[in-house]
């Protein structure tokens, strides 16, 4: 008897601890955390590689080499027959590159009659000098006969060479710039005549076959038009649809069907929307091809489901107590929605809209189908004029072979990414600023 009682009364410390698998549980947790850290590290590494590649390839696009030359606006070259008073075409068709070449010949001290040397100058200056000098003359015809310092764009190959992107150890016959040109380049550089400037042309020029005179100007305007159209159409339609579905429509099988289909629409590949736009807006309604208006309509269709889903989520997140409070005071349903629910849901709606817009800004595939992948050199004056869009411009430059176009493509990607980041930051700031907790 005593033995038994002694056993049962053994002190608690002596009782063997149960194995409840603590070690195993902690090990599992540590393993899981490690997987998480690894996953994030891999993601960050890919992001870093992508960004460094783009930035390292693209940052040079924001600089452009120019040669400052004292250009003599020689009347004999511009208007040899002195007909400019009667024929306005004379000033437009004049051989302006000849003026730039003459100025360069003089600068380098080459004998103009030395044809062989002069021929080597070909491809030193950009043919864009035609547009550049023509603009000066058009602005002020009295400049003819005088001399003026002009920053003439260097040709793309010289620009690349200047930026050190052309390997000079390769035999002369296999590279795009000759030894003579490199020598001249170094001479002009030493004199401070040839220099790099911030490339404003990248933002202002339209499409061009010469890299140094091509830019995203037209694409920026096209993208801007489209964003405005998407905002003006998708936001009101999307918000109105969401309010009706969320607050007014009686739940039924039909509304369930609509809801499922809206969610499905958000997952439809964008190229399908492009085909739809081609069939409906261009072929059936006869709207113009390549126009940013049509692009805006297609992107609106694409953005609508995103905005509707975000808006409905924002509306549903407003606590029911606010609804009861408003209704209990005798507010009508409409007053409840517009005076209480909508203001409280606005930050969420705005965030969703901005994210939808950012997605639309980066969308390429549907625009290809409605003909926005076009060579457009002139600014579109209205949304019905042909235009391109930023991502489409990137796509077009990616198809070019020249080194200088690749550089511009990377530059355009940087511009697009900056826009997208700015939009997302605005969305985050809005959300932080107006987020409410109940």
């Amino acid at each position, binding site marked *: 008897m005593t033995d038994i009682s002694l056993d049962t009364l053994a002190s608690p410390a002596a009782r063997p601890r149960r194995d409840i698998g603590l070690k195993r549980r902690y090990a599992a947790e540590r393993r899981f955390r490690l997987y998480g850290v690894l996953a994030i590290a891999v993601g960050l590494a890919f992001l870093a590689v992508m960004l460094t590649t783009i930035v390292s390839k693209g940052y040079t696009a924001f600089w452009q080499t120019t040669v400052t030359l004292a250009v003599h606006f020689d009347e004999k070259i511009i208007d040899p027959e002195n007909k400019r008073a009667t024929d306005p075409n004379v000033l437009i068709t004049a051989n302006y590159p000849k003026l730039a070449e003459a100025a360069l010949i003089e600068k380098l001290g080459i004998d103009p009659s030395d044809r062989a040397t002069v021929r080597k100058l070909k491809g030193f200056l950009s043919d864009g000098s035609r547009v550049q000098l023509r603009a000066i003359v058009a602005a002020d015809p009295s400049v003819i006969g005088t001399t003026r310092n002009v920053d003439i764009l260097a040709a793309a190959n010289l620009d690349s060479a200047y930026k050190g992107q052309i390997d000079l150890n390769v035999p002369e016959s296999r590279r795009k710039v000759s030894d003579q040109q490199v020598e001249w380049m170094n001479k002009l550089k030493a004199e401070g005549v040839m220099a790099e400037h911030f490339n404003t042309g990248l933002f202002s020029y339209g499409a061009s076959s010469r890299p140094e005179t091509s830019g995203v100007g037209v694409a920026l305007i096209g993208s801007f038009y489209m964003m405005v159209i998407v905002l003006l159409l998708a936001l009101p339609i999307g918000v109105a649809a969401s309010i009706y579905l969320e607050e007014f429509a*009686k*739940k039924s099988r039909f509304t369930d069907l609509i809801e499922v289909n809206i969610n499905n629409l958000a997952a439809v590949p964008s190229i399908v929307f492009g085909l739809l736009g081609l069939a409906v807006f261009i072929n059936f309604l006869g709207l113009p091809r390549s126009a940013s208006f049509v692009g805006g309509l297609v992107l609106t269709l694409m953005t609508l489901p995103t905005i509707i889903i975000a808006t409905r989520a924002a509306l549903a997140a407003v*606590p029911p*107590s*606010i*609804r*009861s*409070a*408003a*209704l*209990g*005071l*005798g*507010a*009508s349903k409409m*007053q409840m929605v517009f*005076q*209480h629910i909508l203001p*409280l849901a606005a930050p969420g709606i705005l965030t969703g809209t901005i994210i939808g817009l950012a997605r639309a800004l980066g969308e390429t595939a549907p625009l290809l189908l409605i003909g926005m992948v076009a060579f457009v050199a002139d600014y579109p004056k209205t949304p019905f004029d042909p235009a391109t869009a930023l991502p489409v411009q990137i796509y077009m430059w990616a198809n070019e072979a020249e080194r200088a176009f690749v550089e511009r493509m990377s530059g355009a990607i940087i511009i697009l990414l900056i826009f997208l980041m700015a939009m997302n930051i605005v969305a985050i700031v809005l959300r932080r600023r107006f987020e*409410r907790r*109940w």
Partner: protein
Amino acid sequence: MNIMTEKSLEDAVNAEMNRPNEPIKMRGDQVTVHYGDKQALFGVNLDVRQNQVTALIGPSGCGKSTFLRCLNRMNDTIDSARVGGKITLDSEDIYDPKIDVVELRARVGMVFQKPNPFPKSIYENVAYGPRIHGLAKNKAELDEIVEKSLQKAALWNEAKDRLNEPGTGLSGGQQQRLCIARAIAVAPEVILMDEPCSALDPIATAKVEELIDELRENYTIVIVTHSMQQAARVSQRTAMFHLGYLVEEGPTDKMFTNPDDKRTQDYITGRFG
């Protein structure tokens, strides 16, 4: 004998205090409520008398809140809810298609379980109702309504210097009094309160109860409560619900001292619920 007379005297005093002869303000006649296929209320007959506090008690899920929400048609906001029977306000059927629900809710105000001020300033919270119903002709009148409502809700002294601060920044008890002020501002005839003190601490609860007692002078009040003491303290009549049925109804004193139904007795003494 002595005891008997004392008792009858007390009854008479009570009867006078409880004023059972007050006119009937609202009447529920065979009220039934279905949520989808589930029936929540079974033929409830209940009178709400003017200038009295009627307490609805009963275990959770017994249908007392459902009945309360029928009185200003808040159940209309639930798609699946169907209300049967007849409810009258001053002998008018409130479910009559001719009755506008917005007007009804202006006459029958409601205070909810959880304080739910709008995330706007204290002033805007109180001014919202009068504004949508056009009760004030100008800013001065509106200011007056806001001040009077806050005074009636015993919040004026605490809030008068911070009318432009958000109502959500007040303490829980103050928020609930703000909600009462907001309901009063519309000048309703009946105020429905759905467990108005369940989210408040005892001190705030005491204040709100005191307020309810004062409000009785000008309004008819129906209050749902889980606290037996609260029902005993603030109400003149009590109705006991159980499983969707009205078990019994009568003067509060009688309900708490000598109920007719055994279920009422069990519930009040804490044997179930």
